[in-house]
């Protein structure tokens, strides 16, 4: 199994945090600057950065599915 990454452009507010944290995985489109996923199945060496990007997204617009099937949706999602 691999890690899978998806992003919701509808809710993206262009914080640019994900692009800084994982520049080979996330980019921004030329029109409104909203998130684009460049690499939907990033390699192991990128997993920590991708998780941090997902946790830090201010609108919880990044969804990461771990190889074991669990999800990292956002920072400190207690509930």
């Amino acid at each position: 199994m691999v890690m899978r990454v998806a992003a919701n452009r509808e809710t993206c507010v262009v914080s640019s945090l994900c692009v800084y944290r994982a520049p080979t995985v996330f980019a921004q489109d030329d029109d409104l600057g909203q998130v684009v996923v460049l690499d939907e199945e990033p390699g192991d060496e990128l997993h920590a950065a991708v998780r941090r990007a997902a946790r830090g997204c201010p609108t919880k617009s990044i969804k990461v599915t771990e190889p074991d099937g669990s999800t990292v949706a956002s920072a400190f999602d207690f509930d």
Partner: protein
Amino acid sequence: MTTEAPSYPFAWEPPMQVPQALQGLHDKSAVQVTLPSGDKALLVTRYRDVRSLFADHRLSRNIARPDAARISADNDLFTNPHIDPDPPKHTQVRSLVTRAFTARRIEGLRPVAQEITDELLDAMEAGPRPAELNEAFAFPLPIRVICKLLGIPPEDRSHFRASVDGFLSVSKLPPEEVAKARGDLFRYLAELIESKRAEPGDDLISALIKVRDEDDNRLNDHELHFWVTGLLIAGYVTTASQIGTGTAVLLHHPELVKEIRDDWSLVPSAVEELLRTQIMGSSVGTLRYAIDDIPLTDGSVITKGTSVLLSEEAANMDPEVFDRPFEIDIRRTENHHMTFGAGLHYCVGAALARMELQVATESLLRRFPDLRLAVPGDQLPRALGGFMEGFTEVPVEW
């Protein structure tokens, strides 16, 4: 109600220490506070609640309502009847602006910020000692960068600085001075917009005017004016204050400065930690109005019709989320602080601010290997009576 609602913003006393009132504030989700206007509001303190409420549509940013609390009795900031600050309208207009703040655009501005920084530091080095850091560097840098981004001519810079100070007064200035400052700024920006309309440039104001003139439904005159004002003010006062205040805090902790000098790759995480612990303004600007009942994590409920503040500084000190919250740890990696907010209203200029803070911090420490405060840190004066609470003067020696 047995206890008096404490005054908010909380006092920075002593000035180098995070307000003591934030200690132990997380036992409950929210506390009642008294605003500078005398009105009462509910201050939400826990990270979990603050973060989710920033994204909650049941809290409206429209506080132009007869029963909403006012921040200040003398300044009706944030209650512009022509502006709809809630989605979906706000979100559409915001997207016209955020496209100018993508990572690529910000990185394109990094060499510009570096060049301005080098020039200012040259002048500071050649000037008298001690130097006053806010005046010599912390304010001019973000002002020049935002003017470049917005297309404001360099000779206009000095015009608007005093007006902005009045614009942001909560209790510092009498109402007539606030009104005059707001009027001056309004007229200046109206003229600027007209001159840009006549002679467009490669800048954000010209780009917004173009959108406005092509389609009135996307952006009307009130919104155009409102956003230009917001970008100009938020674009520099906040970053300027954080550069001066953050640097002062670093210099007050020489061991942190040494850590950075030994490993310059720590600059970005040091900048984040100073953003977390040294918020240079309070959270009065987060004032919202509950249009429905909203449950909180401690089981209590915000009742419909309550005025609510989301305390970024209290969320940033929540021990459930931040290990040793009151300690400055420049190596934190999971530092998802609330200083730029969250949700739909996340600070448009956050990436720009971060870039400027990184350039400023590293360049200052590299240029002056023996940079130090010229007075004891605990004697530095903090701003009172405005939105900004950073140090008003930061004399440095090298």
